[in-house]
Protein backbone atom coordinates (compact mmCIF):
# COMPACT_ATOMS: atom_id res chain seq x y z
CA UNK A 1 0.00 0.00 0.00
CA UNK A 2 1.32 3.44 -0.91
CA UNK A 3 2.23 5.29 2.23
CA UNK A 4 4.76 7.52 3.94
CA UNK A 5 6.56 6.22 7.00
CA UNK A 6 8.51 7.89 9.77
CA UNK A 7 10.66 6.27 12.43
CA UNK A 8 11.02 6.53 15.30
CA UNK A 9 7.64 7.94 16.30
CA UNK A 10 9.00 9.14 19.62
CA UNK A 11 12.60 9.75 20.67
CA UNK A 12 14.04 10.91 23.97
CA UNK A 13 17.75 11.52 23.82
CA UNK A 14 20.51 13.32 25.68
CA UNK A 15 22.27 16.49 24.63
CA UNK A 16 25.16 15.99 22.26
CA UNK A 17 23.95 12.77 20.70
CA UNK A 18 23.77 12.29 16.96
CA UNK A 19 20.32 11.34 15.73
CA UNK A 20 18.78 10.43 12.42
CA UNK A 21 15.06 10.66 11.77
CA UNK A 22 13.95 8.32 9.03
CA UNK A 23 11.36 9.07 6.35
CA UNK A 24 10.41 6.70 3.57
CA UNK A 25 7.61 6.82 1.04
CA UNK A 26 6.16 4.27 -1.36
CA UNK A 27 4.04 6.87 -3.14
CA UNK A 28 6.37 7.16 -6.10
CA UNK A 29 6.74 10.87 -5.44
CA UNK A 30 9.73 12.91 -6.55
CA UNK A 31 9.45 15.71 -4.02
CA UNK A 32 9.88 15.29 -0.28
CA UNK A 33 9.78 17.71 2.63
CA UNK A 34 10.66 18.08 6.29
CA UNK A 35 8.63 20.36 8.54
CA UNK A 36 9.22 21.32 12.14
CA UNK A 37 6.34 22.14 14.44
CA UNK A 38 6.52 23.27 18.05
CA UNK A 39 3.35 22.71 20.12
CA UNK A 40 0.64 25.21 19.22
CA UNK A 41 2.81 26.83 16.63
CA UNK A 42 2.88 26.82 12.85
CA UNK A 43 4.56 24.25 10.67
CA UNK A 44 7.83 25.49 9.27
CA UNK A 45 9.48 23.99 6.21
CA UNK A 46 13.10 23.20 7.07
CA UNK A 47 14.22 21.07 4.10
CA UNK A 48 12.94 19.85 0.78
CA UNK A 49 14.13 17.82 -2.15
CA UNK A 50 13.14 17.78 -5.81
CA UNK A 51 14.58 14.32 -6.34
CA UNK A 52 17.67 12.18 -5.93
CA UNK A 53 20.80 14.19 -5.03
CA UNK A 54 18.72 17.36 -4.70
CA UNK A 55 18.26 19.06 -1.33
CA UNK A 56 17.30 22.61 -0.44
CA UNK A 57 16.86 24.54 2.80
CA UNK A 58 13.39 25.70 3.67
CA UNK A 59 12.00 28.87 5.19
CA UNK A 60 13.17 28.11 8.73
CA UNK A 61 16.86 27.85 9.40
CA UNK A 62 17.74 24.50 10.91
CA UNK A 63 20.93 22.91 12.19
CA UNK A 64 19.78 19.61 10.76
CA UNK A 65 20.95 18.17 7.46
CA UNK A 66 19.24 15.89 4.96
CA UNK A 67 20.23 13.57 2.15
CA UNK A 68 18.41 12.07 -0.82
CA UNK A 69 20.34 9.13 -2.16
CA UNK A 70 17.24 7.15 -3.07
CA UNK A 71 13.92 8.48 -4.33
CA UNK A 72 11.93 6.86 -1.56
CA UNK A 73 14.21 7.79 1.34
CA UNK A 74 14.79 11.25 2.91
CA UNK A 75 16.50 11.04 6.30
CA UNK A 76 17.13 14.03 8.56
CA UNK A 77 20.22 14.14 10.78
CA UNK A 78 21.19 16.20 13.79
CA UNK A 79 24.91 15.83 14.46
CA UNK A 80 24.68 17.05 18.04
CA UNK A 81 21.22 17.25 19.57
CA UNK A 82 20.34 20.14 21.88
CA UNK A 83 17.25 20.90 23.98
CA UNK A 84 16.32 23.62 21.44
CA UNK A 85 15.82 20.83 18.89
CA UNK A 86 12.91 19.46 20.91
CA UNK A 87 9.96 19.56 18.55
CA UNK A 88 7.77 17.51 16.25
CA UNK A 89 9.21 16.71 12.84
CA UNK A 90 6.85 15.94 9.97
CA UNK A 91 7.88 14.40 6.68
CA UNK A 92 5.78 14.82 3.55
CA UNK A 93 5.91 13.99 -0.13
CA UNK A 94 4.23 15.13 -3.32
CA UNK A 95 4.56 15.07 -7.05
CA UNK A 96 5.67 18.69 -6.72
CA UNK A 97 3.31 20.17 -9.26
CA UNK A 98 0.91 23.10 -9.00
CA UNK A 99 -1.99 22.47 -6.62
CA UNK A 100 -0.57 19.05 -5.86
CA UNK A 101 -1.52 17.40 -2.58
CA UNK A 102 1.21 16.86 0.00
CA UNK A 103 0.96 13.60 1.90
CA UNK A 104 2.23 13.64 5.44
CA UNK A 105 3.80 10.99 7.59
CA UNK A 106 2.77 10.39 11.20
CA UNK A 107 5.59 12.54 12.56
CA UNK A 108 8.44 12.07 15.03
CA UNK A 109 8.26 13.70 18.43
CA UNK A 110 11.78 14.50 19.61
CA UNK A 111 12.70 15.39 23.17
CA UNK A 112 16.28 16.35 23.87
CA UNK A 113 17.20 16.38 27.54
Amino acid at each position, binding site marked *: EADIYQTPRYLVIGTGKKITLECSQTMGHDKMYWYQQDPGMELH*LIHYSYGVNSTEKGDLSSESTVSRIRTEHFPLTLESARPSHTSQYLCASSKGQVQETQY*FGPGTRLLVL
Partner: protein
Amino acid sequence: AQRVTQPEKLLSVFKGAPVELKCNYSYSGSPELFWYVQYSRQRLQLLLRHISRESIKGFTADLNKGETSFHLKKPFAQEEDSAMYYCPRNAYSGAGSYQLTFGKGTKLSVIP
Protein backbone atom coordinates in the same frame (compact mmCIF):
# COMPACT_ATOMS: atom_id res chain seq x y z
CA ALA B 1 4.85 40.43 1.74
CA GLN B 2 2.62 37.57 0.71
CA ARG B 3 0.84 36.33 3.78
CA VAL B 4 -1.98 34.06 4.77
CA THR B 5 -3.44 34.46 8.24
CA GLN B 6 -5.90 32.51 10.33
CA PRO B 7 -7.07 35.04 12.92
CA GLU B 8 -8.66 32.54 15.30
CA LYS B 9 -6.45 30.25 17.32
CA LEU B 10 -9.43 28.45 18.82
CA LEU B 11 -13.04 28.23 17.69
CA SER B 12 -15.73 26.51 19.74
CA VAL B 13 -19.19 25.82 18.34
CA PHE B 14 -22.10 23.66 19.40
CA LYS B 15 -23.02 20.55 17.48
CA GLY B 16 -25.45 21.43 14.72
CA ALA B 17 -24.37 25.08 14.58
CA PRO B 18 -22.77 26.59 11.47
CA VAL B 19 -19.00 26.72 11.31
CA GLU B 20 -16.78 29.27 9.61
CA LEU B 21 -13.02 29.03 9.91
CA LYS B 22 -11.40 32.20 8.65
CA CYS B 23 -8.45 32.43 6.29
CA ASN B 24 -7.32 35.76 4.89
CA TYR B 25 -4.60 36.44 2.41
CA SER B 26 -2.79 39.67 1.67
CA TYR B 27 -1.13 39.52 -1.68
CA SER B 28 -1.98 40.27 -5.24
CA GLY B 29 -2.38 37.88 -8.06
CA SER B 30 -4.12 34.55 -8.00
CA PRO B 31 -3.40 32.76 -4.75
CA GLU B 32 -3.31 29.02 -4.56
CA LEU B 33 -4.88 28.05 -1.30
CA PHE B 34 -5.77 24.86 0.48
CA TRP B 35 -7.34 23.64 3.67
CA TYR B 36 -5.55 20.89 5.54
CA VAL B 37 -6.93 19.15 8.63
CA GLN B 38 -5.39 17.15 11.44
CA TYR B 39 -7.73 15.06 13.56
CA SER B 40 -6.60 13.90 16.97
CA ARG B 41 -3.86 11.26 16.68
CA GLN B 42 -4.06 11.30 12.91
CA ARG B 43 -1.88 12.70 10.18
CA LEU B 44 -2.16 16.08 8.61
CA GLN B 45 -4.18 15.63 5.42
CA LEU B 46 -5.66 17.64 2.60
CA LEU B 47 -9.29 18.67 3.05
CA LEU B 48 -9.92 21.07 0.18
CA ARG B 49 -8.13 22.97 -2.54
CA HIS B 50 -9.61 26.13 -3.98
CA ILE B 51 -9.14 25.11 -7.57
CA SER B 52 -11.37 22.06 -7.15
CA ARG B 53 -14.43 23.90 -5.81
CA GLU B 54 -15.51 20.67 -4.14
CA SER B 55 -17.33 19.80 -0.94
CA ILE B 56 -15.59 17.39 1.40
CA LYS B 57 -17.25 16.11 4.57
CA GLY B 58 -19.82 18.88 4.17
CA PHE B 59 -17.15 21.60 4.12
CA THR B 60 -16.83 24.16 1.36
CA ALA B 61 -14.43 27.03 0.80
CA ASP B 62 -14.80 29.77 -1.77
CA LEU B 63 -12.04 32.08 -2.83
CA ASN B 64 -13.32 35.64 -2.41
CA LYS B 65 -10.93 37.95 -4.22
CA GLY B 66 -12.85 41.05 -3.18
CA GLU B 67 -12.43 40.24 0.51
CA THR B 68 -9.14 38.36 -0.03
CA SER B 69 -10.46 35.42 1.92
CA PHE B 70 -10.79 31.66 1.67
CA HIS B 71 -13.00 30.84 4.63
CA LEU B 72 -13.96 27.23 5.36
CA LYS B 73 -17.64 26.70 6.03
CA LYS B 74 -19.99 23.96 7.08
CA PRO B 75 -23.69 24.50 7.74
CA PHE B 76 -24.02 22.01 10.63
CA ALA B 77 -21.02 21.11 12.78
CA GLN B 78 -20.51 17.52 13.89
CA GLU B 79 -18.45 16.31 16.84
CA GLU B 80 -16.09 14.51 14.48
CA ASP B 81 -15.19 17.86 12.90
CA SER B 82 -13.16 18.73 15.99
CA ALA B 83 -9.58 19.07 14.75
CA MET B 84 -6.79 21.47 13.83
CA TYR B 85 -7.36 23.25 10.54
CA TYR B 86 -4.65 24.92 8.46
CA CYS B 87 -4.94 27.19 5.44
CA PRO B 88 -1.58 27.02 3.66
CA ARG B 89 -0.74 28.81 0.45
CA ASN B 90 1.18 27.40 -2.46
CA ALA B 91 4.26 29.31 -3.56
CA TYR B 92 6.68 28.78 -6.39
CA SER B 93 10.02 27.55 -5.06
CA GLY B 94 11.98 27.35 -8.29
CA ALA B 95 12.87 24.63 -10.78
CA GLY B 96 9.22 24.17 -11.65
CA SER B 97 8.25 23.17 -8.12
CA TYR B 98 5.93 24.57 -5.51
CA GLN B 99 5.85 24.42 -1.73
CA LEU B 100 3.27 25.09 0.94
CA THR B 101 3.54 27.77 3.60
CA PHE B 102 1.52 27.00 6.72
CA GLY B 103 0.24 29.33 9.41
CA LYS B 104 -0.54 28.56 13.02
CA GLY B 105 -3.88 26.98 12.28
CA THR B 106 -7.22 27.09 14.05
CA LYS B 107 -8.36 24.50 16.55
CA LEU B 108 -12.04 23.72 16.09
CA SER B 109 -13.85 22.27 19.06
CA VAL B 110 -17.42 21.06 18.53
CA ILE B 111 -19.34 20.93 21.78
CA PRO B 112 -21.89 18.08 22.06
